């Protein structure tokens, strides 16, 4: 018995040494090296369709981080200051209903001034409200789009539209399109991940490949409502077996598989299946490490607001996003969302609650921008911050605001967009986009363009028709290109 234990201990020790060596070779410090080392990984990638592909033209950005603010943050309370809205606070305006029950009906709505004070920041003197004091420090790096508009009025349709370019029809997510167009930048991790996604408001369809091959499906890490501390890729580790035991089993299993492959007299698919096990095992070795934040120094964590009550959770998501991007994940989406009928930023009856959400996200987002910049990643990473729509300049009930898909703000920063720049305007009160209008289709076209993809050429033939992310719409917004 004693001897058994000793034997086992030796094995475990031996394993951790091997594991250490492996991580040094394949870990994320030495990804490039890992790429050179593993010839067969590349061929597995080729079989799986995730091999890197050439873009249509030279890209400005290699990867995307999309920070999704679910529920519709208010632009008139954050980035789109309107003097006239302040001046006309409390006055009524005419409005024609767009929802069921009020569709087409005329009514009066009471204008409500922003609940927060605005200040000018940066060299560009961009006004930002007190909601986002940390993000405001970055205005000179940011490209604000203040003339956004989109389709749908309710969360479900608009959220789907933002992700897939369709409110009702089943279409692939933008992340799937990007991965389909460009393949993977890494060999041990998925190419498209979404951190803490919500299961509602479109749910899995927001990161679904739809009719694209399954490999372009987004891989969820955690889910909305689950602490980011627990977020991981499904089944990335074995809940029962010691690694050493599992390695013996794995080696045994692969030996059996190779015997069967030989008996089948060769078959590409069987071969690819064997390789998929190898890749899975490599993912199992590497992915948890990427999501593990303990190796980050305290100053970095502090910068993301990790350890602070309000911002800890989203801070972790943002830091994970940086680590994933750095490790070569092509498209990372961070979700500030939940499963409720009124998602996070959806303040129909209590606009002051916007402050809670700002507190939870402002520092983490700012921390991410700082971190990306100091690591030189911001140059070729495109960051997109925004919701599915904005909110109305007029009040709903006492102090709420309704959905506003007709005019709202988002921002882009990093790879290929102008910095310290603001594009587009809403009308005097912030209701309709009137100048420099950018439709969600246009934003999609622009993001693809920055990634080196022509949205009219990135097509996939399904059931006899060539589909694209932007359907028959979309214009690249050249005005915001750096």
């Amino acid at each position: 018995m004693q001897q058994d234990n000793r034997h086992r201990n030796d094995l475990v020790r031996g394993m951790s040494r091997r594991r250490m060596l492996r991580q040094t070779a394949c870990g994320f410090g030495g990804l490039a090296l890992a790429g050179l080392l593993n010839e067969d990984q590349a061929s597995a990638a080729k079989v799986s369709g995730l091999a890197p592909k050439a873009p249509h033209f030279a890209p400005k950005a290699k990867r995307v981080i999309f920070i999704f603010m679910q529920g519709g943050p208010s632009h008139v309370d954050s980035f789109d200051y309107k003097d006239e809205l302040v001046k006309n606070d409390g006055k009524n305006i005419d409005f024609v209903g767009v929802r069921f029950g009020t569709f087409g009906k005329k009514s009066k709505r009471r204008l409500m001034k922003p609940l927060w004070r605005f200040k000018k920041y940066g060299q560009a003197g961009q006004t930002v409200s007190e909601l986002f004091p940390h993000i405001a420090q970055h205005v000179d790096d940011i490209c604000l789009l203040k003339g956004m508009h989109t389709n749908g009025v309710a969360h479900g349709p608009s959220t789907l539209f933002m992700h897939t370019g369709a409110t009702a029809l089943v279409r692939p997510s933008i992340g799937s399109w990007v991965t389909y167009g460009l393949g993977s930048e890494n060999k041990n991790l998925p190419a498209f991940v979404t951190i803490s996604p919500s299961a509602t408001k479109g749910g899995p369809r927001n990161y679904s490949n739809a009719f694209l091959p399954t490999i372009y499906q987004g891989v969820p890490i955690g889910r909305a409502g689950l602490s980011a501390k627990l977020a991981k890729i499904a089944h990335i580790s074995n809940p029962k077996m010691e690694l050493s035991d599992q390695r013996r089993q794995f080696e045994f299993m692969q030996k059996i598989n190779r015997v069967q492959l030989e008996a089948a007299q060769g078959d590409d698919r069987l071969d690819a299946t064997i390789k998929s096990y190898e890749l899975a095992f490599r993912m199992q070795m590497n992915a948890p490490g990427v999501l593990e934040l303990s190796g980050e120094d305290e100053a970095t964590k502090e910068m993301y607001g990790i350890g602070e009550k309000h911002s800890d959770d989203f801070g972790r998501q943002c830091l994970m996003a940086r680590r994933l991007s750095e490790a070569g994940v092509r498209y990372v989406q961070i979700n500030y969302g939940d499963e409720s009928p009124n998602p996070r930023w959806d303040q129909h009856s209590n606009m002051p609650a916007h402050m809670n959400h700002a507190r939870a996200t402002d520092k983490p987002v700012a921390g991410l921008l700082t971190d990306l910049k100091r690591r030189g990643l911001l140059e070729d990473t495109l960051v997109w911050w925004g919701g599915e729509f904005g909110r109305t300049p007029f009040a709903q009930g006492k102090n709420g605001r309704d959905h506003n898909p007709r005019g709202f703000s988002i921002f882009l920063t990093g790879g290929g967009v102008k910095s310290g720049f603001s594009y587009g305007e809403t009308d005097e009160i912030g209701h309709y986009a009137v100048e420099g209008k950018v439709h969600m289709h246009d934003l999609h076209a622009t993001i693809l363009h920055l990634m080196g993809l022509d949205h009219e050429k990135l097509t996939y033939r399904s059931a006899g028709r060539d589909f694209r992310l932007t359907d028959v719409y979309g214009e690249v917004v050249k005005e915001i290109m750096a």
Partner: protein
Amino acid sequence: MRSMLLQRFVGMVAVLGICCALGLVGGVAVRAAEIKKRGEEKLSVEALEFFEGKVRPLLVKYCHECHAHDARKIRGGLLLDSRDGWAKGGDSGPAVVPGSLEKSLLIEAVRYKNRDMQMPPKRKLDAAEVAVFEKWVKMGAPDPRKGKAGGPKKRVIDIEKGRKFWSFMPLRVEKIDRLKDEGWAWSEIDRYILARLEAKGLRPASDTDRRTLIRRLYFDLIGLPPTPSDIEAFVKDESKDAYAKVVDRLLGSKDYGERWGRHWLDVARFAESSGGGRSLMFRNAWRYRDYVIDAYNKDKRFDDFIQEQIAGDLLESKTAEERNERMVATGYLALGPTNYEQQDKGLLRMEVVDEQIDTMGRTFLGMTLGCAKCHEHKFDPIPARDYYALAGIFRSTKVLTPGNVSGYVEKTLQVSGPRKAAYDQYKADERALAGLVNSLKKEIARLSKRKKAAIVKGKRHPRPLPVTGLVGVVVDESKAKRVGPWKHSTYSSNHIGRGYIHDQKMNKGGSKVVFTPALPREGMYEVRIAYNHGASRAARVPVEIRHAGGVKKIFVNQQAAPPIDGLMTSLGRYEFKVGMGHGVSVSNKGTNGFVIVDAVQFLEVKVKLGVNGVAKGTTKIQTATSDNALRKAQAADEVRRLLKLDGLKNDLRKLEAELKAMRRKAPTLGKAMTVDESPDAGDWHIHIRGQIRVLGPKVKRGFLTVATPGAPKAGADATIGKGESGRIQLAEWLVRRDHPLTSRVYVNRVWLHLLGKGIVPTPDNFGTMGRPPSHPKLLDYLATKFMDDGWSTKKLVRAIVMSRVYRLSTQAEESLKKGDPENDLFGRAERRRLEAEAIRDAILLISGKLDRKRGGLTIRKFTQYDNGYAFNTVRRSVYVPMFRNSLLELFDVFDVANPNLVVGKRVASTRPTQALYLMNSPFVMEQARAAAERLLKLKDLADDERLDRLYEMAVGRKPMTKERELTLKYLAQERETGEGGSDTRILQAWANVCQSVFASLDFRYLN
């Protein structure tokens, strides 16, 4: 609205350079004068000057990028660089009507008032710029520019030419006369296959071995692996019809419907929730699933099957069962991924129609009809007119119910047969009981009202009671000895005698009232004290009773109503003797509210003596009042009423519980998700460019012209009665014997499921963008035979699996592999990956955990949302709830059909997520452990023999030598090194072996 302008275009970029090039800088007047001089236009100089100076620059700056003949892309067919251009207009007609601001679409667009038509798209023109256009139109739109007009470029569809495409041609059976190797073919099917192989000089592969064949057949027909004894029996059966016997047994098994029903559910995009925005649960969708499974098991004629799904609710039914079944079948139309939350309900209605047309087109016709929604189909001979002929039918069908989040139509199913008698009995019982409960409720409500009134009345006007109206000896406060500043009051009329006194809430501890009664004789008395209660009163009024046994101190809560007739409370029973000094004193010591003193009553208690003189009991004294007849009657009545009320309430509770229990056990009256005829059934308009509010001409409801033999090219109109949707006619059209698509599409699907790929490799697309059939003659032969055989799926399946081509080996000689690398000629069998369901069901079968229960609702009760649903069932996969927002993980990982789409052919991807699932998921590990436990329970077997069992169950064969060696070595090694005691280690080692088998290539693939 108007689509031409809706088409987004870029006009934002200022094109100053162009303005210069036009010579505007050089002087507008000069240029206008020149034109005038040349006599090209008879426009006034002022008009020309206005156009050249004001209007043209705006057009160039904002419009030409998309609406000029040299634009990169002309949007909406509209040109604004010539007079004819705007006069003729684009898809929506003239853009400018000279003189009319109202009729000029251009004005409407630049005014930005219509949300659906705003131009230029990126920026609203400023007021001055809009005014320029308005003035120009009012002036009569002077415009000297010549040039061609745009107008929609229409693809002209030639129906006659379209009919020459292979899939629209009539079916034609052409036999194969001669083969080089006549002996090879076992069936007609084989002749078609061999003919093409021979034409290419190729030989088919050899027949596969029996073990491989039976595994293939089992998975193909019932979706489960054969048991070791099934294999053994088949391998040993030397009779000629050994194989046919297995085929017929499997076709007759109920497992068959569970396998083949699932294939249909794939194309019917079956799901039990809507997914999308706000996902709605489809609580009764399981009935459709069971209907499909049942239809396959009883081999329902496929033409009936189609008709029931399109128009089941409208077909005449003989029995209630038939009616129910058909109602459920039509659920097919309602099961789509509808976004019920869509706020624009007009749009939602059309989205549903579009989804239905698209689904029906792909499911039954193998056509992508969606392309014809916005324009003439670009590839197939389907004009937009045909699309809206079909849309008229579906638009005339009601699918949605109104609401902010819309709902779907459900109808109650009828009950019949023996269940009907039971149901009727239940209904009668339930009605009777419910009636009883109701009348009781009414009575209680009536009494409660009266009681309330009585209380209110009592509270306000309780009559003061004269002392003489009371029984026993009563001492009024006026006769008592007082100490301290007591105050007389009649404020509350609820008192005895002329009033009562209170301590004025002062002199606490110093005031006292002493009652000394003149009792008629010695003996036992009940002592009661009267007060009127209230919140301002003291809660603990100390009262002392001096009696024969001493002094008893009691606290009275004067905030509480006195329990006896609302007048008095009892202080207890005491013995009083002469000369001992007796009485009752009330003090205000230690109190903090008003202390009320009204009267004290002494009631003699008559003690009954037993034989030995011991007290046996006492008479009961219930009320305080006596010969005051009125008061007495009132009190008695009140008591009776209250008693009755309590009794009634008790009865009600019991009956209600009974009713609830009865309803819980009620024979279920199912509901079906289905559709209805729409109240506004009728023909509908073409939607220009698919825009729902841009209506073109109305078209008669009808079908695909190209696929309707004999229909005029103007359209295959249907004859539809008033108020009818036309679904019956559509269903009849689909199953016309001469329909070129329906039977071809279906037999191709069946072929695909058995051979791994279709004769037409694109099963959902029989159009020009699909791929043509590899064996057109075989396809037509099968389609014709299928209809001749009474549209029987089982006969078709049987014919295919009995063919020799089905029974070929996956292994082939190099010459065949080279001559037909993609196996387009079916010269060998396709190696196929098991579908998600087969993987799961086989694992559960091997672990011994599979629950074979059939049918029924399988969503756990009270599930409101599909997200986060915890799947914990071990029933066959076809019964695992199918949600659009959360799929069973194993399904998701192993490419189950996406329930949002029509899936005729599943993908079989190879992904690391599958590997992770097989390596690390609790499900696989638990089943592996259960399988190991099962194996270890087989006593007296060597490891070797256990391994045989495992391999036979999982891969249908015994392990190869190398597999055996590796496994035994692994087992031995794990026995030494694993954790825990020896039994634990052995179990773990076997579990690991089972898991490795589940993850092995030969388990995942079907040879």
